[in-house]
């Protein structure tokens, strides 16, 4: 019951209620794993599904993601203490030459909403920076965003750089952004493409759990 309550408050973006109920749930010996999966991730999944159907819009996604983030501030230390790991680690950025960040940020929120840890490299990120981060962070997934037809080739550059650095087989690569299509993603050798952030998170989870 309380898990459902948390999920509902999260969907409404009510940070205070989410935090208070997580405290109550933890005090009531509900497992942090269940709180994460049955309330926070479940709530974000509902938001993601509604977003795909245009039943909610980005403002509603943002306030739900904010509530999840604040909830995680309480839950994360307990999860770490119990050795509960995220389902995967993603490196996310907007490629070189492109400063657009709305899509990237949205995908990041949705990925976190699926229980995937995200390391955000920001915008205008050179392929060399991505390669360096792949070496040091060792992500399972690399997500590349581009908003312009002039910058989308930067996604190809990163994939080529991963190949040249013998790192391509170690990561799943997903691409997205306004001008990007499934055909383009396939042509440049990406493993996944989605037309919206919510679908991207679902696909990422699928690729992480079932493989490419």
């Amino acid at each position, binding site marked *: 019951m309380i898990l459902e309550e948390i999920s509902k408050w999260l969907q409404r973006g009510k940070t205070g209620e989410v935090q208070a109920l997580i405290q109550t749930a933890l005090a009531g010996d509900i497992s942090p794993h269940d709180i994460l999966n049955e309330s926070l991730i479940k709530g974000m999944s509902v938001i993601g599904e509604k977003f795909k159907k245009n039943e909610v819009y980005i*403002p509603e996604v943002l306030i739900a993601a904010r509530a999840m983030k604040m909830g995680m501030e309480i839950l994360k230390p307990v999860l770490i203490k119990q050795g509960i790991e995220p389902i995967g680690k993603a490196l996310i950025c907007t490629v070189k030459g492109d400063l657009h960040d*709305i899509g990237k940020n949205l995908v990041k929120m949705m990925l976190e909403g699926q229980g995937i840890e995200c390391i955000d490299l920001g915008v205008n990120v050179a392929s060399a920076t991505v390669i360096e981060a792949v070496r040091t962070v060792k992500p399972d997934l690399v997500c590349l965003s581009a908003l312009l037809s002039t910058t989308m080739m930067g996604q190809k550059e990163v994939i080529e750089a991963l190949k040249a650095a013998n790192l391509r087989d170690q990561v799943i690569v997903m691409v997205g952004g306004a001008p990007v*299509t499934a055909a383009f993603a396939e042509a440049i050798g990406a493993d996944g493409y989605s037309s919206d952030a919510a679908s991207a998170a679902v696909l990422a989870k699928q690729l992480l759990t079932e493989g490419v």
Partner: protein
Amino acid sequence: MLRDKLRQPDFNNFIALLLGKPTSRPVLFDFIIGDKIMKYLVGEENFKVDTEFNRMITRIKAFDFAGYDFAPILVRGLEFPRKEHNVTEVETKSLNEGAMIVDWASYNDYRWPEITNCDFSIIAKAGKYLPEGMKFIPYSYDGILENAIGIVGYENLCLMIYDDYQLVCNVFKQIGTRIEAFYDNVLLYDEVGCILCNDDWGFNTQTMFSPDFLREHVFPYYRRIVEKAHRLGKYAILHSCGYYREIIDDIVYDMKFDGKHSFEDNIVPVEDAYRELSDKITVLGGIDLNFIVSASSDEVYQRAKRMIEASKLKGRFALGTGNSVPDFVPIENYIALMKAGLEL
């Protein structure tokens, strides 16, 4: 010069197109053309952009030489102050960048531009350079939603809706009333035959804010602006990028725009948009910009020709790009596009 010398600008053709009446020849539409292609169109000797006025004259020539029936005109002075864009080597920017209003204190400190900053008389002055048969289509420096996002930041604005709704209401009112006053002024000039309201409302898969939010804070201003244009016997077209399906009835039946510009293959390809919309609104431009950049000249020509053919019977289609003609468009592809509309 791209157009044949016998083909002269004829704004009446453009009006006929907006009204869904037959036109004597295919009509062309574009809104923003980059300097590289403007220079190509007018020739090195005529390309003068050292002052805002010279840029206007150059634009008139470029649109005339290319075969359009109008020239867009930007009257400056209503630029809403934003923070400096500080990454100079990159030509893009984030919608989160430039936020100046984050709370009531910054709202109260904000220096709102005044309509008196705009020198509207430039329309009459530049109008002396309009060739016979051509009219101006003025537009403002960004629209209501774009300016709100520009001065609050997109994500900040999203959160502000839930954290301080009254502040959001005030921001939109400040912007909306100024944009409305801007169009009230430009509509007074005889050189103006139509206005263009430029305001991006959508991403690829949905509107940036809920349709209800747009209906409350954005659309009422445009409804009044279009109403005023019609009352004065003029026309109003919308340039708005992004997903539009849930708001198209607002665009057509509530705000009553006469034409819509900006179509993208990743959202609704212009061929589909034309099938869906041409009974109720004129489809302007629409050949996807990414396609124009990446396809061969022949592919661009063939697609443009097919659209001209498809719209021959019903009309209500002006050939042009889906968005704009930035400098990264290969000149030969722009020429191929125009050729499809210029040849008889």
